């Protein structure tokens, strides 16, 4: 394969963009993860129900549940945790409803966010503030 002068220039420009990309990455990890999940779609509020306690005595086990009718995937994020991802659900053809519950660890008082990807590709968001008395990350 031979490269013309034009090809070489284009490749050079591409390489430069790839090299400088990391600079443009959002500082906020939560934003990052949300954007990755949304895959370019705008995130709108509503259409998802996130149930979390207002006050959690123990951050080591905080019950959370999400109900997202019509969703194909749900991602739960803890915005104040060292690593924001909590759990991601993918609903299969035998799912009875797009609802799931689990128990998570929260490092401290913070917002918990649920993102739901609908069958048409749109992304919905719900958030809840949880007050944590004793953090759940040890140390």
């Amino acid at each position, binding site marked *: 394969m031979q490269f013309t002068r034009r090809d070489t220039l284009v490749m050079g420009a591409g390489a430069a963009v790839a090299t400088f990309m990391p600079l443009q990455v959002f500082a906020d990890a939560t934003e990052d993860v949300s954007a990755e999940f949304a895959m370019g779609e705008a995130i709108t509020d509503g259409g998802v129900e996130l149930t979390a306690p207002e006050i959690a005595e123990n951050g*080591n*086990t*905080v019950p959370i*549940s999400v109900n997202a009718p019509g969703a194909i995937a749900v991602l739960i994020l*803890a915005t104040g*945790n*060292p*690593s924001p*991802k*909590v*759990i*991601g*659900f*993918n*609903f*299969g*053809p*035998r*799912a*009875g*409803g797009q*609802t*799931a*519950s*689990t*128990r*998570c*660890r*929260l490092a401290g008082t913070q917002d918990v966010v649920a993102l739901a990807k609908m069958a048409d590709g749109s992304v919905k968001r719900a958030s809840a503030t949880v007050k944590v008395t004793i953090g*759940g*990350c*040890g*140390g």
Partner: protein
Amino acid sequence: MADNVKPRVRVPRSAAAGEAFEIKTLISHKMESGQRKDSDGNPIPRSIINHFSCDFNGENVIQAALEGAISTNPYIQFEASIEESGTFTFTWQDDDGSEYTDSKDITVG
């Protein structure tokens, strides 16, 4: 491999066709998040269950990607709806590569 990993699953014995019902799963696992430090200040390596899936007669019900923020003894509750009798299979995947499974039969009636 983590010690004493024991999956527990609660599925109704029978269900009505096409009607959603609840399934509860729990597996005993320490879910070491990788964020904690031991008494000497060294980080304790992450050791969690990173994936859970539930299938019914080969068809998927739910898959979950678990992260370090999931509590010890991960509990997952979800809904399924089926048309015929069959078997639910549950699979948990550990960070160390081991896999824990459980299965439950259900009749539609």
